[in-house]
């Protein structure tokens, strides 16, 4: 970066901030002409309408709920062509538009803002890019926007956000408060917290030390989502999975232990299937006795389901075209035959 470039922290009122008509966010087609600084003020209404379509209401709601948090500052540059001091927003156009629209709604009397926020709108902390020549400022602008929006901050994994939620709970916030703070439902906040607690419990288990990874959080989430299943596994918010038997069953299914036994459940779909089986009394008793996920076979709510499934297979065989069978199809069919033979001979 050039030496002649300086960044200053200044305070401005919302009316001094002008939205950038050349904002990349508004580049819906590649051929838009670039607008000169002289036209910026005239174009404000147009840009505001454009930005209004960028899910602005989510941002507005968040500002109304949490106030305007200046975690990362709005970045501006001088707008040379104007008589009174105005600044062009380089970074943070959507936020600026949200603030402007809140203020206008307040002035139009269709919304009433808190005094706190109104005061904030009169002195917003922004970063001013000061450069000796326009080309340098432009260069800096592009670098900055590139870093922000092309690579951008990486979105947190489910586990990372669950950890945050859990620490919010530890600060004695209620599920409802956390929900409205983060824009999720109270139920979801509770669910993620439980997921994280279950995850910490697993990570501390002597048999699985060093084997626990982020994906196990996603898998455990399936086991603690339904209240009926929570009851079965003896879930308590302070003791987590309190049933030793189910601890063993769940852990051995989802995680590799230190002795190197491979787990049978490796993705959320399998976990969901297993949880579904736990909810059906017929399977639950089997699982409690030590039957594993793979031994359970296809899971169906009642016996009629098995019949209809078999009928479906029958129809499939009736329609089967021999010419379409490949070599591997034949080997699969052979395996099926062995299984059918075994079943029939067992039944006598």
């Amino acid at each position, binding site marked *: 970066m050039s030496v002649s470039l300086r960044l200053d922290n200044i305070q401005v009122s919302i009316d001094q901030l002008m939205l950038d008509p050349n904002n990349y966010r508004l580049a819906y087609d590649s051929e838009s002409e670039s607008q000169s600084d002289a036209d910026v003020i005239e174009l404000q209404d147009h840009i505001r*309408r454009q930005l209004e379509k960028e899910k602005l209401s989510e941002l507005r709601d968040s500002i109304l709920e949490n106030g305007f948090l200046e975690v990362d500052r709005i970045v501006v540059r001088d707008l040379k062509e104007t008589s009174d001091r105005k600044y062009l927003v380089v970074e943070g156009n959507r936020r600026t538009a949200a603030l402007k629209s809140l203020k206008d709604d307040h002035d139009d009397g269709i919304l*009433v803002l808190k005094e706190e926020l109104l005061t904030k709108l009169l002195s917003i902390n922004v970063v001013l890019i000061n450069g000796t020549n326009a080309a340098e400022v432009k260069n800096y602008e592009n670098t900055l926007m590139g870093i922000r929006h092309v690579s951008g901050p990486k979105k947190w994994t489910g586990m990372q956000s669950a950890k945050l939620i859990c620490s919010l709970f530890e600060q004695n916030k209620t599920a409802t408060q956390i929900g409205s703070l983060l824009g999720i439902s109270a139920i979801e906040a509770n669910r993620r917290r439980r997921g994280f607690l279950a995850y910490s419990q697993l990570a501390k288990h002597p048999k699985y030390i060093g084997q626990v990874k982020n994906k196990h959080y996603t898998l455990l989430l399936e086991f603690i989502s339904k209240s009926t299943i929570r009851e079965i596994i003896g879930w308590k918010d302070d003791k987590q999975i309190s049933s030793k038997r189910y601890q063993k069953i769940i852990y051995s299914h989802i995680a590799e232990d230190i002795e190197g036994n491979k787990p049978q459940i490796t993705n959320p779909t399998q976990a969901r299937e297993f949880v579904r089986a736990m909810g059906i009394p017929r399977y639950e008793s089997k699982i409690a006795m030590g039957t594993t996920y793979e031994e359970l076979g296809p899971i169906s709510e009642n016996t009629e389901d098995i019949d209809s499934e078999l009928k479906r297979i029958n129809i499939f065989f009736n329609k089967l075209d021999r010419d379409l069978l490949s070599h591997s199809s034949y080997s699969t069919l052979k395996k099926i035959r062995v299984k059918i033979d075994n079943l029939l001979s067992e039944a006598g």
Partner: protein
Amino acid sequence: MDWFYLAKDELLAQLEENSWLDGATFIREYLLKNNEDFTSLPEEEQDIYLIDILDVFENYLTADFSEFVRVGKRYRWFNSKHDTKTKEAETNREVVLDDDSDRELLTRKAELLNSEEVASILSSAKLLCNKGDYLGGFDFALKYYSVAKKMQYLDADKLNVLSMIIDSSLELGRVDFHKFYCDKAEIYIKNYNHENAAVEYDTAIKKLLELETRQQNLISDFKNIIRELYRKCRIQYENAGDDDSASEIYVKENKYTQKSLNRGMKKSLMYLFWLMARYGESPLRVAGWAIFLIFACSLIYTLAGINPPGGDDGFKCLTTSASHELICTVIEPQKMLKVSYWSHLYYSVVTFTTLGYGDFAPQEGVSRFVSAFQALMGLILTSLFLATFIKKYSR
């Protein structure tokens, strides 16, 4: 578009409940809920589709449904129910107002307006409000008010125009009208007219509480605003020397706080305080409770029984004339002695006031338990009565 017609119906239905909607959000939510073609698009393409369709839909609204929906700036869509009167006025307006030149006055700074122009702003405001064009009337009245503030006009002028602003705000369904009531009240306070100031605050509270919940939600900090207004209102009644109204407002203020609390200890205690003493504003109510308690307990004593004086076992001793020996005989308790209702009432009063002469005493069991409770309540109610009495009559 084929879904426009249904979306419009949904919009009108929602506008019945909300005074305005954010069009961009409305369309997105409508499509997500009702349009499978839309939901099957990847999110990025949904965004792009919305960007194009929003303006088309807005044009459709302005072209065919302007009598139901008023399209505002930045996709704010209003229920034009409030503007029905405006429609009639619109035609007359061109006759009385030179629209462009008068509108131009609104944008000019206060210092650049001459007295004639200011007068014309005021007359426009009056004219439009009378004609029922509150949209225009509000703008002109507000402009006049801002000029009046800056140029320090007479307070009577400001009060007049503020009344106009308030009326049109209410007609338009604006939710920020309480600010103007406050402005009015402050002018009254400046002129030591505390009574009127209090009435302004009082009206503002009433109008705010009359709003529907959805509209109340548009006001950030609604509860604090109400509480603040109650406080200001009470102080003005006090300053005006109207203690009864001040007390009434104080009770309402507390009632409001109590209602807005979450269920819990504090809420229950506040409720109890209201029940017993109207938040300490009613010595009469406390006295009522005291009398009720005395009578109620006396009834319980009648049923559960109290021991009359000398009712316990005792000795009767006599000296014989011959040997001068003291001969004592055990006397059976006078179980047969009837205690009248009045004695039970007397016992109840003696217990309530914690006098405790000891002539009558509670029988074991219910009577003892109730007596202990009554004595405690007596202490609380007596002190509560004194506190409320002094609070009320020493203002």
